[in-house]
Each structure stands twice: as structure tokens, then as C-alpha cells.
């Protein structure tokens, strides 16, 4: 996900309202071979097509209901995400096909590992987490918020985001350490030719 969303995106209220209005059949058990009704891959395919992007084959397989490693909760939350992305408000903002697909391949699995899909519809904090995560991962800002406000609020409502930040900070620290070590090497000390020395 971009580290610093730049462009103003949809109103958070609009998306929270949209989640509150999630139709009950989106939370029906997803089709997984011999059980469930909702064909999540088809739902997601339709919404991606609506945004002008073709569903990537690996994502189609992931959401097909045919993989044992993909549980029902991840499929249900994918359906909820599809519902959220089907709102007309998105038409006003630039959307990137890869980022849209990454919502299903990266954000949804992480969120689904934290809580049941129904909680992202029924509980205010989880609703906000889902809406904010979606906006942020599309490289946008909630309308009326600065980048710093949006980042702070997302980190406060989202355990997934907090962990992501922690991992990013660990990676940044590892990189900084590697740079310091590279600069301290004997080879770095010895330097290289310049025609003038300050």
C-alpha cells in the first residue's frame, strides 16, 4: 500500500452508511464445494468489471470456494468488500486496478484473520476499520482529513494496520542498520577518486 495517500477520496460517512446497509444475503454462507450459496468469485468479478478491471486468474481461484486454505470468513468478507466497492461514490475518484485486486488478495485476508465478517458490518469500530483500510489502500484520504489524521485514525482502529506499521518500522530499522554498517565498512572508509576534495 502507498505509505502516504495523497488524493482526497470518498466521505467516510458514505462508506459507513453503505456497510450498515449491507444486504443480508452478502453474509450468507459462501459457496464452498458442497455447502453455501453465495458465489463470491462471481460477485467480486462483477464489481471489478464495474471498475473497469479484469479479475486476475489467481484471485479468481482464491475466491472460487474450491481452495481448502481459504476459509468461509475470508470469502464472506470479500463479498462485503465487493458490496462496499460497488457504491457509486467511487466513480468520482481515480482507482487503480492492481490496488483494487490487492484489497481482495492482501487486505481482506489480513482483516478476516482478525474478526468475523459480520463484525465488520455490525460493529462501529470494525466498520470504520474496514472503510478506512479500503480508502487508504486505494491511495486516497477520507474527505476532509489530512494524511496525518487519516494515518493516526486508521492505526487507532486497526490492529492489522498497527501490525503493518510495526513491520514497516522493523523493515525500515533493518535498512537503516544496513546503511550504517555499509558506511562503517573499511571499504567505504577508503573512498574513491574525486578530482577535487572538499
Amino acid at each position, binding site marked *: 500500500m502507498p505509505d502516504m495517500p495523497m488524493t482526497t477520496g470518498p466521505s467516510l460517512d458514505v462508506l459507513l452508511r453503505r456497510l450498515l446497509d449491507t444486504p443480508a444475503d452478502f453474509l450468507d454462507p459462501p459457496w464452498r464445494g458442497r455447502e453455501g450459496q453465495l458465489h463470491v468469485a462471481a460477485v467480486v468479478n462483477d464489481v471489478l468489471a464495474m471498475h473497469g478491471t479484469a479479475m486476475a486468474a489467481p484471485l479468481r481461484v482464491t475466491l472460487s470456494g474450491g481452495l481448502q486454505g481459504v476459509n468461509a470468513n475470508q470469502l464472506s468478507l470479500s463479498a462485503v468488500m465487493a458490496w462496499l466497492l460497488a457504491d457509486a461514490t467511487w466513480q468520482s475518484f481515480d482507482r487503480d486496478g492492481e490496488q483494487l485486486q490487492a484489497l481482495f488478495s492482501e487486505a481482506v485476508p489480513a482483516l478476516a484473520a482478525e474478526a468475523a465478517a459480520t463484525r465488520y458490518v455490525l460493529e462501529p469500530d470494525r466498520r470504520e476499520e474496514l472503510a478506512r483500510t479500503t480508502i487508504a489502500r486505494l491511495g486516497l484520504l477520507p474527505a476532509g482529513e489530512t494524511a496525518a489524521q487519516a494515518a493516526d485514525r486508521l492505526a487507532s482502529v486497526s490492529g492489522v494496520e498497527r501490525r503493518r506499521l510495526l513491520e514497516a518500522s522493523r523493515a525500515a530499522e533493518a535498512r537503516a542498520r544496513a546503511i550504517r554498517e555499509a558506511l562503517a565498512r*573499511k571499504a*567505504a572508509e577508503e573512498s574513491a577518486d574525486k578530482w577535487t576534495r572538499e
Partner: protein
Amino acid sequence: MSQAPTDAERYPTLSEEGRRLLQRMREHPAAPIFRNQSGNRLLAEEVTQLRAYEQQVMAARFEWQPGVPPPWLAGFLDAVHAQVPYFRARDRGTAFEALPTTDRGDLAADIARFVPDPVPLERMMNFRTTGTTGHPLVLPSHPVVAARYLAYHKRALARFGIGLQHGRGQMGVMLLGMQQRCFTYVSVTPTMDESGLAKINLHPNDWRDVDDRARYIDQMQPEVIAGDPISFATLLQLPLSHRPRVLLSVSMALSTGLRTALEARFGCPVLDLYSMNEAGPLAVHDDAYGGHVLLQPGMYVEVVDASGRALPAGQEGEITLTGGFNFCLPLLRYRTGDRGALAMAGDVPMIVGLQGRRPVRYLTANGRWINNIDVSHALAPLPLSRYRVHQHADAGITLHLPVAEAGLADDAVARLQQALDGRAVQVQRLHAEDKLLQYTTDLPEGFTA
């Protein structure tokens, strides 16, 4: 971790002729004691790229004027905000002019945060600077970055109608130091068909016979001699017969008096380059325009006031840099600590009234002079964040230290006294919170030229 490089790493493209030249520079009967080893470290494909780079730099035009940023600025800002941890952590903001400035203190606090994510670390090198502002710095660089200096030197030389000619088997450049301790070595420049490069120290300590200094330079016949006002003042005293094509003066302000004396003595132009480790060669003084004409079309220069507000052309303030050719350290509104005003020299921007670093020398108890670089070396082993060494009119010395570093005072005084042949050193608290002049003198002879 601390393995020294091999010759194959120092000179990856070295030919047999190049090897012989290295040997001649090192083993000449009048050669100085070369205390270190270094090299160009350039890979064959990098040499090819550098040749193309030099042509681009020679042909490039400045696309900005004071107050009118270049078209490449927006893309540069996008890149640094996406790739450089320090800038990524800040709000991108909307107006360039409103972005906070950075300075040496920021770099000194954690240089790693200024290195872009995509920069590979395997061949990273560093340049150490002392500078006048009290923050010792280790700056990230790369062999290609070091080699790019020459492109800007050539641009400066071309301004005065000089094209470099020395190549295979000849000495291209001799870099002079005049310090008690100095990094000295020999190398060759692959983009100049392996012309020779020797960095030598004119200090008598580095020679078997002090008369060898003139002999060595006369025998090696460098096309270019580069140095600072202190080493050039020494060069002036040597009985040389060799006439280089040009002298390049860097590091410190070159006085008109010294420049005139050098031009008369060597019968060649003396180019006063404004250059710094953070940015490379930035400008060259051009008498015809009465200012330092800029050399890097990829560097946007502002002059700002204390609050970081860009000042209009003609108004004096702090020189502030954005851009640059060191891909390990892109600068964004970087305050140099140097002052001047912007103006135009034809279609090229220039800095008028540059007030850079003025060399200071100190009188030791034995009546000899040491320069501020020696003082830097004496204090360098101590973890001082900043200091000021002041020479009073009676040659007495006061060392100013931050209150928080008073615990290092005894050690600092001892080191300074040793460098000053035992001269007494007083200690005072340093109250300045921000930038300060590191080396100052009330004794007029402390200014070398």
C-alpha cells in the same frame, strides 16, 4: 566486516599501462610517502556510462531562474517522498516553498534516513566532512558519484576555454593537502584514458626530503593541480618549474590576493570552485560576471531567510539546495550554512557575494602555524556534537563546548594542547543552540590569505 579492498576492486578496469603509471607515481625517487590506498573502483560499464554522463552535463542547460523552479522539480519531489525515509515521514505539503528546510544537523542526527530505499548498499562509500558548522558528518556516496565530479569540473573548465588533454601515461591531476595528517594515494582516471591521479600532502612529514616536493611535481607534470588556499600558499613557496594548465581551488574561500599571486607564479588560470561534500562542485567564480556561476543544472538553488522563506534575486541569505547528482543523498531544501545572493550570469544562475568557509590557522606554543583541519583531526576522536576553537589577539586559545559535553572537556583540552605544542587552552560553555562558526580568530595572521 572491515576487510580492505584488493587492487582489483580499487581499479577494476586497470590496463598494463595504467599499472605502470601507478608504479611510477608510487616509486619515483622523489615520491612522497603515500600513506593510504584508494582507487576509482569503476566497473567497465560504469566508465561507459560516465562518458555519456559527461557529455550530457556539458550540454545541459539550466531550466530555472531565481524564484522559477525547474520543470523536473515535481518529479524529484515525488521520488524523494516515495523513496527517502526522512521525507516520507513528513507531510508532502502542496507548495515547494513551504516545505521545511533541512540542514547538517538533520543529516548528522541519522544519515541513514536520507538514503533512498532503492540504493544498493554493496558498493556504498562514505565521505567524512568536518565543515564549519560544528556537525561532523559521514556522507553516503558511490564510486560513480565520486567520478561524476569530473563532469562538473569539465563544465567549469570549458567556461574558461580549457579542455583537458592528458591521457594514458600522463598525470591528469594532483590533489594537494597541507596537513599534519592527510589521506594520500595514487590512482588512474578511466574516463581520461587512465591519466594519473595523485593525492599528496605538502607537509614536510610526508617527504623523505622536503626538496622532493618540487622535484616530484616537476617530474610528474600534472595537467591540473587541485588544492585549497592553505596548500596553494605552500605551493607558492616551492621552486617549481612545471606549469600546470589550471589550478582548482576548493574547500575554502580563495582570496583575490592569493589567486593573483598563483596566476602570476604559474601563468595559468586559477578556478575558485564552490564545492561541498554534500553536493559536489556547485559553482565556479567568473570575474566577468562577478559571482560564482552555477555548474549543476540538476540542482535547484534557493537563497532563504532564517525562517526558510525563499528570498528574491539580489537579496542575501542562506544558500539552500534541492536535487543533485549523488543518488545516495538527494537533497531537499538543504541549508548549506553558506551565504550569498542569487543573480543571473547570462542564462545561467550564479551566487553573488558568496561567504563560504574561511581558513583559519593557529599559532602553536613553538611559534609554528597549524591549520583548522589539524584542529579538526585533533578533536575528531571525541564524540563532540559541536565546538568552537577561538584564537584571541594574543594567540591564547578558548575551546567552546556544549554544556552537555562538558565531561569531554579535559580530553578535548589535552588533545588540543598537544596539537598546539603545549599552548594553554581555556574552556568555555557554548551557548549557541544552532549553527556556529567552528574556527575563529582575533589574531589577524590567523587568516592565511
